[in-house]
């Protein structure tokens, strides 16, 4: 039951991945700093954070291509350090630069990976046809991989990674440089896979991608800031967020920042986002204040905070405390 809203604590057999106190050092920097989390079977789990947060290092440890300095990681009950071969049979790993052969065609790349994973021809052809159709690439089978657009290359990478049946799929920033339409197709494929029981760990620097995961770990400087469902993460932001939409948003910013109950103020396109103590009390006050100052605005409305709002708030608080 991958989609449960309130998930009960589960016995270990229901966990596809268990990471405890993972540490990885590079000269001069601790890339992963005591990371602990677990991923349930059939879950899409997001490792979310900026460049340098430790996402790629974590993925590499999970894929068994890099050893941790301390701590442990289990995939399907197998230890990535002690039993890397067993781990490799259970996973498929798509690194940021997936090894596509640019001078081979789409079809030839798929055949190459199918041979590598020991997939039988019949199964390979059935699976390739289904995957290519799902990502809208059936008509490009004879195109050289080097001639594909960025989004299509990413999708071909996923097709190759999925030509065998992994229990766990590890995707490192799979949608970098991919346009929103291709991105939706890519995600539709992921949801289809979890429907079949595959567990997916997906890393991204884009906080809006976090919304699509069942659960996310927000990472910053090798550490875990939060780990929860996206909807619940947003409830952790103290206070509310209000948007004031205006044709003259930049002229409103300073006046709005001086109003009572308003914390930080952010100019975003044709709107000003205000972090306030209590939206229901402040919305009428703000509308009245704007009217009395004769400042033009289209609407004042409470909006759902974004994961980025939460991240910025948490990091600023930590830095203030430090």
């Amino acid at each position, binding site marked *: 039951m991958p*989609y*449960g*809203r309130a998930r009960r604590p589960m016995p270990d057999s229901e966990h596809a991945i268990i990471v405890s106190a993972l540490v990885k050092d590079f000269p001069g920097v601790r890339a992963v700093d005591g990371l602990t989390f677990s991923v349930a079977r059939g879950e*899409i789990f997001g490792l979310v*954070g*900026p*460049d*340098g*947060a430790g996402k790629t290092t974590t993925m590499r440890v999970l894929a068994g291509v890099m050893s941790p300095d301390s701590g442990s990681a289990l995939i399907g009950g197998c230890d990535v350090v002690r039993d890397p071969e067993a781990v490799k049979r259970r996973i498929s790993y798509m690194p940021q630069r997936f090894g596509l052969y640019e001078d081979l065609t789409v079809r030839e790349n798929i055949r190459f990976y199918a041979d590598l994973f020991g997939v039988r021809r019949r199964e390979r052809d059935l699976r390739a046809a289904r995957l290519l159709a799902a990502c809208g690439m059936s008509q490009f089978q004879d195109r050289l991989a080097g001639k594909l*657009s*960025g*989004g299509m290359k990413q999708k071909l990478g996923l097709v190759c990674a999925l030509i065998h049946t992994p229990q766990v799929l590890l995707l490192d920033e799979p949608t*970098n*440089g*991919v*346009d*929103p*339409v*291709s991105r*939706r197709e890519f*995600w*539709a494929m992921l*949801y289809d896979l979890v*429907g079949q029981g595959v567990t997916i760990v997906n890393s991204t*620097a*884009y*906080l*809006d991608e976090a*919304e*699509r*995961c*069942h659960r996310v770990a927000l990472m*910053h400087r090798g550490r875990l800031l939060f780990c929860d*469902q*996206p*909807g619940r993460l947003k409830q952790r932001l103290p206070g509310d967020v209000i948007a004031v*939409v205006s*044709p003259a*948003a*930049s002229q409103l910013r300073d006046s709005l920042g001086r109003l009572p109950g308003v914390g930080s103020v*952010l*100019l*975003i*396109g*044709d*709107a000003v986002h205000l972090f306030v103590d209590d939206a229901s009390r402040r919305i009428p006050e703000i509308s009245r204040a704007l009217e009395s100052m004769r400042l033009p605005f*289209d609407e004042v409305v409470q909006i759902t905070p*974004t994961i*980025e709002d939460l*991240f*910025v708030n948490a*990091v*600023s608080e930590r830095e203030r405390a430090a």
Partner: protein
Amino acid sequence: MNSTPLDRDGAGAGEVSVAVQDLVKRFGAFTAVDHVTFSTRKGEVFGFLGPNGSGKSTTIRILCGLLRPTSGRAVVAGFDVASDPESVRRRIGYMSQKFSLYNDLTVLENLRFYGGLYGVTGARLSQRINWALRMAGLHGREDSRTATLSGGWKQRLALGCAVLHRPPIVFLDEPTSGVDPLSRRQFWELIQQMAEEGVTVFVSTHYMDEAEYCNRLALLMRGRLIALGAPSELKLGAVQGDLMLLETDSLQRAIEAVRKLPQVRDAAVFGNALHLVVAGAADANQPIRAALAAARAHVLRLEVIRPSLEDAFVALTASAAAAEPIR
């Protein structure tokens, strides 16, 4: 300076900084840019969106004076890109986070290099370098090797280099990709300040959170301009009907059930929830609830939500594709 009268394309009041009229660019039989018309005014943050191959980069290369249009006209900072590309290039700045800095050079060396490139010299160069260091928060790190800077600093340094010669127009290509959210917000603050001082900022991006920071957005597809407007306008206008959020204890059963309903035009999984596009929420509410009850999927939440910019982007490109199937 430029005194072209304003086109009636929603650019609003203010001096025009970039005017594009019926722009066409063909490569052999392929039309990369297909009669594109728009204009921007001074001080505007203007977003350029579109799927890969939409003509976005070609248009920007034309506006930078790097590529001649096949027909049509583009005037940038008062100069025609076809007849006077040199003057255009001197009046623009270009920044792509990934390619614009020399990692082996120090902060100061990078700034001097770009100063030389743009012909900024002498007292003006030291004054501008000082400005860039202050803007980027890099005073005291002049001699650090660029490779050792964090993403946020690199990005502000790249911006400093791109605007060292005080161009009235700046082009940014996915400027904040991969940067931590705090630095990203600082970066956009700098961009807003530059815009308030009258600089026109072009942002080309795939990322909707970057697009949100723009005053207006142009959406290109297959070389054509298919939408132009403020982010809030595009969100309101793009989705025909209402967008509903459904949270349920069984997404699998729910999606199968609602897809059979005539009232539901589209249903897509979004993490733990579904997004449903319906003709009217009031009419769709009861049938959806009934279908879910029959499928034994409990409704935890069902409400109308505002379309996101991504919803708008996907809906606009889909309706443009439906109106004109691929040739």
